[in-house]
């Protein structure tokens, strides 16, 4: 019985669903605030201290709005796709060790890194389907752009994720994190930089925010959505953002490990995880705010002609210098 209680609390409250939701809303706020300061604006300021409750207010508003399903859409797909995408992202987050271990205790296994990447890919198909089911020219173009861009950039992302796995000699995220006595970002910076670039494209941040370029295709794949379903799409995007930032933290920055000064190590784990992830979010926002949006053809060319060869090279480089690095780590 006691075991069950821990399981339920860990899944639903901490560090499971509720905590993740709060975390996602916090990052949403942080992202908006950073972007606003870059753009010489205030950003959210009125709801709660420094506007920190603004994302919650926004979601409450969205959930209470009228939910319109256009007549000619494929109803089942139109309704199911956002929920599917959302669920897959939450599921993927459960395999990311936030307080040093997975949400469901002892659920990590050799290969969960691949599972997480797979779930993220599947969730993006959900997003694609949501746009495709809308039967709107803007949504259709947005949806095809999601696929074109995402499928392309998934390849270098996975290739680059192999680098840390190779150094740690494990495909389990927990093991990769645990084996970083020195963060891999210091050992193989080339992989880390390329990973962040590929991630920028996967997360559809400027200069890669092509699937929802508002001045071209209005809302992109989410044009026809409103109310609760739109809220699910927005939440999916926020969750994907957290997964992306968390992956960088886990694979390259040593995850939730850091100096434990006093008290419970678990709290310090969460503290370090947050600090590192916020740092990653800041970098992603920084890049996004100092560049214009590229065009889809440029993005596709950049991927196949530049990023994929470079990521293969970087993997090769990692393999070559591995013995040297191992002697450094000891």
């Amino acid at each position, binding site marked *: 019985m006691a075991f069950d209680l821990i399981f339920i609390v860990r899944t639903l409250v901490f560090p499971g669903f509720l905590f993740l939701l709060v975390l996602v809303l916090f990052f949403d706020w942080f992202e908006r605030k950073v972007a606003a300061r870059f753009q010489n604006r205030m950003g959210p300021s009125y709801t709660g201290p420094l506007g920190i409750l603004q994302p919650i207010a926004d979601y409450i508003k969205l959930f209470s709005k009228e939910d319109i399903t256009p007549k000619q859409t494929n109803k089942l797909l139109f309704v199911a796709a956002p929920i599917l995408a959302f669920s897959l992202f939450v599921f993927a987050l459960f395999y990311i060790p936030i307080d040093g271990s997975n949400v469901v205790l002892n659920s990590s296994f050799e290969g969960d890194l691949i599972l997480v990447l797979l779930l993220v890919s599947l969730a993006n198909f959900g997003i694609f389907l949501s746009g495709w089911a809308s039967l709107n020219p803007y949504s259709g173009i947005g949806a095809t752009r999601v696929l074109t861009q995402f499928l392309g950039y998934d390849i270098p992302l996975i290739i680059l994720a192999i680098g840390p796995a190779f150094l740690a000699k494990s495909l389990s995220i927990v093991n990769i994190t645990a084996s970083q006595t020195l963060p891999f970002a210091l050992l193989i910076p080339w992989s880390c930089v390329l990973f962040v670039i590929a991630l920028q494209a996967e997360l559809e941040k400027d200069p890669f925010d092509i699937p929802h370029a508002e001045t071209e295709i209005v809302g992109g794949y989410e044009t026809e959505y409103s109310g609760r379903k739109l809220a699910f799409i927005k939440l999916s995007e926020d969750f994907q953002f957290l997964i992306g930032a968390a992956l960088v933290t886990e694979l390259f920055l040593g995850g939730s490990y850091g100096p434990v000064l006093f008290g419970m190590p678990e709290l310090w784990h969460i503290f370090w995880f947050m600090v590192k992830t916020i740092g990653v979010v800041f970098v992603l926002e920084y890049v996004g705010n100092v560049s*214009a949006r590229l065009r889809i053809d440029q993005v596709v060319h950049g991927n196949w002609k530049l990023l994929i060869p470079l990521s293969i090279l970087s993997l090769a480089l990692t393999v070559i210098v591995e013995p040297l690095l191992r002697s450094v780590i000891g």
Partner: protein
Amino acid sequence: MSKFENAVEVLKNNLADAIIEFRVPKPRKAYILLKPERHRDAISLLLKHVEDTELSTITGTDLGNEIELNYHMACGGTVTLKNRVSREKPVVRTITDILPGANLYEREVFDLLGVIFDGHPNLKRLMLPDNWPKGQYPLRRDWEPHANQESGSNSEETSQTESAGEVDDAGSIINVVMGPQHPVLHEPERFTFKVDGERVVDAEMHLGYVHRGIEKAAERMMFFQDVFLVERICGICNAAHTTCFCQAVEDIGNVETPPRALYLRTIIHELNRVHSHLLLLGVAGHLLGFEALFQHVWRDREPIMNIVERITGNRLMSGFNTIGGVRRDIAPSIVEKARKNVEEVTKRAEFYKTVFEEDLTLRLRTEGVGVLSKSDALKFCVEGPVARGSGIAVDVRKDDPYAAYGEIPFNVICYKECDTWARLMVRAEEVLESLDIIDYALSHIPGGRLRVRVQRKIPEGEAVSRVEAPRGELIHYVKSDGTAYPYRVKVRSPTLANLVAFPEIIRGAYIADIPAVIGSLDPCFSCTDRMVFLDTQNGQRWHWSLDEINNSKNRNGLI
């Protein structure tokens, strides 16, 4: 011999048999009355013999039993070729085959005066709504806005279903409609793009959503009232419109404007240009997904707005020019503050210029995109920064100096790249040039009177006036019949000139290029649509409740 003198000589020598009347009342302004149907010869001659000749616009005037068509040709000055057709059977040969840039102007005259252009490729409505009754031509003198209540409902067959040319293999081609409401447009117009994947196959535009009937309204107000009316054609370039209109009226009435007024007009006009260009550069950042640039440029536009407010009392609508001079003086303390602001903005403008020059993502998005070659630019008669981005160094301020521009040193910015980047760079550099002009003018204002009193009745006559508005050449044609009310006021704003080229530029581009190209043309649709009283009382009106909207039967009826 200047370009203008050359043009006049060419016409005199080669077309002596066709000219009925020939007048050059002011320097660089010629009015030539031709025998019927000889306008094509005259225009061909000018195009052949005078370099960089463009058509400014076509003005139609109802003279009672004839309709006079004025072809305003810009070649150093303005050569106005007059061609008269009978009012009963108004048919005239088109000039679109020799000058494709006349396309929209001929459609406009067809729409508003009912002149049929024989041989025009696409003679359709331009400004009036699709359900406008047949046979109603609002710019004819006997047309009254409220006299036609009955005929409102017997609408012409709607041309809503018009397509952008037939395209084969419609399977993979979808129609993407941008506008009247779309984030790329800040004013309501509709563009229909035929899109194959990410490529634009064809484009068509639909104007007229902000028609206010200003030209007709101008005929019903006195000259001095019209100054405030034309100011409201466009908020951003309001000083350009008032300067242009006042110049035309002063030209007819032979009014000598005092030099101090000319300098003040120049200052306010250039302030307009600076804030208009900064606005556009910011919007370009927004359209290209560079939000930070957008926000920063707009912040740095504020000091300019502050100067305008200090000088005129208003942030935007200056209400500054009047016939015979200007309405307010500028105090020495304001001059000091203004020069300080100008200095501050100059530093920022230099920075933005380097951003547009050097930023990698901006250049990737704008270089080689939306190319408008020099010959095409001449063919479509584009104006202002769009023409200067295509290597045509036209600038009314240099070619046909007005206000104080004859005395102020400045350069005409011209780029030869012909693409979106060049058009944006022209503006970025013109901001600096304009700031220099403002600084020079502020420190060289001559003393003297602000305005001369002008009688309300303006003697009989006509005048063409051109100014270089921020978006390009703006032309006003004013005709007076000796009363206090103008007989005809014609306005052609630069956006209409530049829009002709848009479908050509965009064909074959990517969807993502559409915002970039639209932005680089800097369209201002409110300037463009201005000609007719729209009587909303005529149309049938009804309301739908939310349930009725949700009722699919109703909705299908709409679609």
